[in-house]
């Protein structure tokens, strides 16, 4: 065990955390399982928000709206068309992605404060907007669903099944998010946050990356929304009040603080990483920073 590199220790830590997460539902009551499920779902939404606000520097105070889109997509698909619950998560994410990109287009022209203002307004307008389409959304009553049961071959109860489902999605999106942020795209996102003008000068397509960041961020939050709709078996306009969006941003500030400016600028400029800045735009995809770098680069 002594011979493990820091990377190895980290992998071991991740494996231990996953093992603990797998064992957890058998150690606590059903109600706590449900709460842990919700915590993981919020973690997925926070990953989405952090990608946008933390890594790309675009402030969003309105991610509750994307959470609502995901939740309602799942609920309407199940309620109106009887789609199996597990098939509702991809369309929920996809629709959120499309709307996120569409919203990201005007956001390109808005900076800092004004983007915060627009997104906060979006959060305020969401519940009313949902109430308007009452033939689809069930109005203020919302839509009542039944909690999905585990497949027959798996001897777990509903709450535990939802827990494992959320855990699986959580691991999947964090793995994907980590790879995304380590890739050329991730470095472009951070570069745009730290210095948009130099990023443009270095050939980063700012508009493309910013709208994509908005889309991917909305996608993750939408997926979380769909999972939340399944887990609580209920969606209603008032669950998506502005305070949902605000708790997201609070969560993002408290828990998921993004790499600071100093660390990331070290990553993008240092010669100690053997990644010369001039190569930046043309580097191939994949794990280019590699494990040979000091930890401060990753």
């Amino acid at each position, binding site marked *: 065990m002594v011979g493990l590199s820091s990377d190895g220790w980290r992998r071991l830590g991740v494996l231990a955390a996953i093992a603990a997460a797998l064992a957890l539902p058998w150690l606590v009551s059903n109600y706590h399982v449900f709460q842990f499920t919700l915590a993981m779902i919020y973690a997925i939404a926070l990953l989405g928000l952090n990608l946008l*606000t933390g890594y790309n*520097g675009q*402030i969003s*105070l309105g991610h509750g709206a994307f959470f609502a889109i995901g939740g309602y997509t799942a609920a309407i698909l199940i309620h109106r068309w009887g789609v199996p619950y597990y098939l509702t998560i991809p369309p929920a994410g996809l629709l959120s992605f499309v709307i996120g990109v569409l919203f990201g287009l*005007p956001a390109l*022209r*808005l900076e*800092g*404060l*004004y983007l*915060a*203002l*627009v997104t*906060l*307004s*979006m959060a*305020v*307008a969401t519940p*009313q*907007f949902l*109430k*308007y389409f009452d033939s689809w959304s069930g109005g203020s009553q919302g839509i009542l669903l039944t909690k999905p049961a585990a497949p027959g071959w798996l001897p777990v109860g509903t709450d535990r099944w939802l827990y494992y489902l959320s855990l699986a999605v959580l691991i999947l999106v964090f793995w994907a998010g980590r790879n995304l942020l380590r890739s050329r795209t991730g470095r472009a996102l951070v570069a745009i946050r730290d210095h948009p*003008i130099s990023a443009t000068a270095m050939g980063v397509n700012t508009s493309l990356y910013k709208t994509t960041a908005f889309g991917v961020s909305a996608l993750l939050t939408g997926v979380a929304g769909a999972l939340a709709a399944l887990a609580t078996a209920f969606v209603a306009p008032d669950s998506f*009040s*502005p*305070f949902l969006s*605000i708790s997201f*941003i*609070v969560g993002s*500030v408290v828990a998921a603080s993004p790499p600071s400016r100093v660390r990331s600028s070290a990553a993008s400029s240092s010669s100690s990483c053997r990644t010369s800045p001039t190569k930046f735009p043309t580097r191939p995809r994949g794990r280019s920073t590699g494990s040979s770098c000091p930890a401060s680069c990753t």
Partner: protein
Amino acid sequence: MEQLLQQVLSGLATGAVYASLALALVMIHQATESVNFAQGEMAMFSTYIAWMFVQAGVPFWIAFVLTVAISFLGGVLIERVLIRPVESAPVLSQVIVFIGLLVIFNSTAGWIFTYTVQEFPSPFGDTPLFGDMITSSELGVIGVTLVVLALLYLFFRFTPLGFAMRAAAQNPESARLVGIRVGWMLAIGWGLAAAVGAVAGIMVAPVLFLDPNMMSGVLLYAFAAALLGGISSPGGAVVGGLVVGVLENLVGTYLIPTELKLTVALAVIIIILVVKPSGLFGTVMVKRV
């Protein structure tokens, strides 16, 4: 035609409230270049203070004056204690502080006064005037707002303190060199904004009823108003507020269902920001690279 005129007049009344809150936003924006997202919640909290006084049997207008004074002090205190440390912080940190304030006020109000919707008395009664054209409360709201705006105008135009505050907002360095205490001017600006917000809250509470989430919609309209008039122009904010109020009423009556009003306001905000970010009366901001 009569209904149209009626709608326009009552739109002016709500517009006057939006104008006050938008003016509060613009005042803080002028001094600090940031938008106070907690302005609506601060106004809501002030309204609760007024409500408390009224419940305790204090006559309405005395409660009004007391509340405005308390809000002023509260605004000054918030600037000194909470805003000052982040004065030169990045935008994201400032936004987070404002959001924190919003949450604090909202939940403190919920904690102290509960989330139950309360009725708030209107000092002007509700008698129809001029052949049912306008109610006395609507006329009262317009009147009070006009008085507040006139006072503010006179203050900033003719008093030494008002001059000093404008100087501090326009050019802090030079203002400091001629002996103006810029930090305190900002604090007084916050106090004034809080006081104006309190007036807006008290005026709108009889219509919307009082609860901790009362102001979120109003704040959205105030954003729209401030941006429409140009966030760098106090006069523009007032005009913007009145226009937004009238538009809200007309569009809500004739074009779209009530549920979509906020969505339309959101669309207006986005369109203004994308097409003409400086608003109708604002100065165009030029950023140096």
